[in-house]
């Protein structure tokens, strides 16, 4: 076992392979204050990649409702149960166990094995509120009746459990972009990766008899385009870019800005120890305790930063740039109320106003001799 540095838990940890960070690391930031679970992302992914034989049940991208939804069933609860109660003090490294450290000597990672039935209820718990709405209830902030939507793809972790678990080394992490792939010619369908991944994003194909997973839309990424789930998001809640570790963070890189500079975006279940590369801006009205067990002790800080967004024109500009281009944004700039996105060469990709311009039109149109309807 090697000792590797995991910045999300602020310490070194054990992993079966040496630390070998890729040149660039694929990552996505999601603003959970905006997700409406329209599932367009799930269908964009499915139409592109998982409409073949054996893939019928697969959602490489899925959106589940929290707290009562999950796909596959109870994936989060079951892995946390297996890991056991762990503590993480605010402003301290995580000194609890990761799934690699909690592993018994016959396994690579503490895990549970899903059954086929567990995958057959992707909408289980959808829109289920965390408490009953009774007569006389009214909205208060924080909401005491809450739920939120959690869209999830493979996290293309820095320390993948799937890669660690494969006894044939049939899973590899690309040096050029950090995308983790199952070699479709070498996999023998043992399913160790399906068991090991705590996020359950490795899936067995009963037609080809081998396992598959989200490929990070690498054919798009190689051409400089963001993944399908990102570009098709109707609510424009997502942005994909290349994240740097904190000691190399570049302030004008969109993902570095949201994760490292402002601390707005947090990894999910970082205590499991995989250094996942999908990051979430937490939903500001959901229960803090619930959010903390999922996103770690920096939740309060992230939410208070989000609430002060009106004082941060740069962050506002970046959030507005999300969903405005299908190309990967290398760096961005906000000046004089306009947000600019640039590619690697420094050429402008797109620019958008931070505040939508207001257009006033008179109630009666002289040219056509008709009234304008004020139809909302």
């Amino acid at each position: 076992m090697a000792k590797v540095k995991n910045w999300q838990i602020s310490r070194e940890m054990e992993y079966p392979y040496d630390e070998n960070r890729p040149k660039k690391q694929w990552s996505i930031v999601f603003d959970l204050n905006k997700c409406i679970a329209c599932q367009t992302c799930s269908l964009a992914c499915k139409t592109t990649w998982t409409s073949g034989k054996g893939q019928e049940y697969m959602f490489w991208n899925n959106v589940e409702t929290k707290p009562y939804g999950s796909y596959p069933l109870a994936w989060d609860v079951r892995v946390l149960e297996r890991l056991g109660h762990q503590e993480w003090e605010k402003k301290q490294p995580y000194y609890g166990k990761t799934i690699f450290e909690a592993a018994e000597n016959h396994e690579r990672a503490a895990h549970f094995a899903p059954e086929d039935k567990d995958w057959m209820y992707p909408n289980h718990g959808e829109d289920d509120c965390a408490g009953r709405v009774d007569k006389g209830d009214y909205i208060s902030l924080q909401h005491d009746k809450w739920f939120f939507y959690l869209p999830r793809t493979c996290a293309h972790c820095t320390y993948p459990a799937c890669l660690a678990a494969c006894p044939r080394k049939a899973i590899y992490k690309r040096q050029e972009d950090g995308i983790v792939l199952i070699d479709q010619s070498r996999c023998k369908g043992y399913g160790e990766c399906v068991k090991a991944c705590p996020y359950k994003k490795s899936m067995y194909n009963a037609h080809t008899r081998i396992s598959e997973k989200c490929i990070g839309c690498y054919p798009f990424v190689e051409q400089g385009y963001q993944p399908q789930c990102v570009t098709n998001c109707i609510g424009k809640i997502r942005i994909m870019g290349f994240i740097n570790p904190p000691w190399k963070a570049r302030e004008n890189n969109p993902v570095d800005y949201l994760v490292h500079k402002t601390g707005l975006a947090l990894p999910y279940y970082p205590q499991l120890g995989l250094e996942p590369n999908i990051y979430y801006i937490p939903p500001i009205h959901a229960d803090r305790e619930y959010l903390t067990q999922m996103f770690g002790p920096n939740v309060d800080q992230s939410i208070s930063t989000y609430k002060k967004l009106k004082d941060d024109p740069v962050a506002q500009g970046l959030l507005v740039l999300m969903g405005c281009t299908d190309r990967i944004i290398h760096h961005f700039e906000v000046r004089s109320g306009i947000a600019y996105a640039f590619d690697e060469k420094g050429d402008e990709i797109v620019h958008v106003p931070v505040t939508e311009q207001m257009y006033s039109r008179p109630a009666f149109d002289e040219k056509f001799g008709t009234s304008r309807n004020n139809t909302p």
Partner: protein
Amino acid sequence: MKTTTLLLTILLMGEFAGAEISVKKVTGELSVNFMDQKLWSQALPDETIGLLAQPVVVPKPTKTETQKINVAAIHDGKWIVFRVRWNDAEMSEANKLATFSDAVALQFPVKNNDVPPPIMMGGKGDPVHLFHWKYQYQLDAKFGKKPINEIYPNMTTDMYPMEFKEKGNYKEATKDQRDSFVGGTAAGNPQSFPKSGVDEIFAEGFGSSAVSDSHLAKGYGEWKKGAWTVWIARPLSYDNGSKLLVGKGSHVAFAVWQGGKKEIGALKSLTMMWTPFFIQEK
């Protein structure tokens, strides 16, 4: 740690040490009649060989599911057949997610050195030739590879890429075009194609196994009253593989998977020592 494990296993295997298989010559066409009762009645009695839960590579089984295997073998000068028997409470097939097939594998050295290769699937430059029988492969051969809508009849699909119910003006897609949407098939992964009963595999160390293009070996298994009996027949000599010669000896190793106990890949019971065998001239 590894040395201690190895020493322990050798001590434990001591109970069954000294097993040596004598392979009698029979007159018959074993490449066709490899299960023939009359031919098998001439075999020497079974040798009992002890197995151990795979102890070296993670994931390791937490217990030895199959503790011993009974082995006998006969040859006809051209083909050799091994008959292996072990206890398994249930027949297990794969197909559905998280289900695994009962299986057995025979491992032979490729190089006929005095010292056989490392027991755990050979070593670099010292390959092994494996014959892997799976109950699921036998079912494939008999009934064809089950399509997904038979494995999961209630699975919802509206259409598969390039498989149009009413193609209208579209040109019919070729098989290659349709297969490009199916990962394992497009990559030519042997796992994704219908199997014949026995896989021939080469390996140079664990994790390196690769299915051979050769499909000469035959196998058949019968499960009765809590025990499997499997016959695996193979040519004595392969040009680029295990070369067994009449009047000479070699070594064989065994591995058994109980699918019902979720055994697959490294989760198996196996022999940690090679069993010598001798191919008799008569």
